[in-house]
């Protein structure tokens, strides 16, 4: 393969991989955070109920 072509290919591949890798990472982070917020909220509501009782 033409060495220039391999630089071009790997340049674009690295660029897109970085951006999509980052997107994948924040999507995973959002999933984890949603779960955490839901759990914390549930725990707090439980405590309020106990307090009222």
């Amino acid at each position: 393969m033409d060495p220039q072509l391999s630089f071009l290919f790997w340049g674009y591949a690295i660029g897109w991989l970085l951006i999509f890798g980052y997107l994948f990472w924040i999507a995973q982070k959002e999933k984890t955070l949603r779960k955490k917020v839901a759990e914390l909220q549930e725990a707090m509501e439980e405590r309020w109920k106990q307090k009222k009782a």
Partner: protein
Amino acid sequence: MSMLSEFDDRPAVPLWLLAASALAMVVHMYLVFVWVPTEAAQGIVQRLFYFHVPAAMAQFTASFLGGIAAILFLVKRDNRYDDLSLAANETVVIFGLVNILLGMMWAKPIWGIWWTWDARLTSAFLLLFLYGAYLVIRPAAPVEHRAVICAVVCIIGMADVPLVYLSNRLFRTQHPAPVIGGGRGSGMEPRMWVVFMFGIFTVMLLWSCVLMIRRRVARLERAAADLTRRSHEMEDLRSYR
């Protein structure tokens, strides 16, 4: 009211924007690899330009957005601006890395070296370093002062952008002279212009999608931190009683 209701199941980015971004990426790839003419002096590797420069433009835009959001935070003390600033600053690092790595891939076959410490490359590296520092400082800073410290770092970062932009106009650099507004001899073949402009459009579209998603994650992080703090406060109150 449930805190999660703020973060309903609607996607952070409108579907039409995601679809437009995906379509633009495919078209851009076609234009770069098939349609655009090959540059006579540098050969096929010059086509890295159509991603390298738009990535730098996205980086600079993100830096300005982050800086303006930081200033607004300092004036209004509204956490939404801090969230926006964080989201923008993280994209500065991502698109800055893309810019620098693609530049290195371009430099090796043309200059024969991956890197040189000329004014443009050094100032671009410093900009990336500053925003890297921002991301390291953020979790390490005390919570009560975090947003203010980060806002200051981010404003310093924004001030570095004009220096990066002007570096190859003010100093003699190994980096090529500017293509846009670079004086005599600058400019491009019309088809190259089309691909370049379309590259800017594509990368900016993608950047705005990434920004919107990251901003929502920043808001979720804040909600999780607030809930954790409140939960600890309730616990403390209970043990005190």
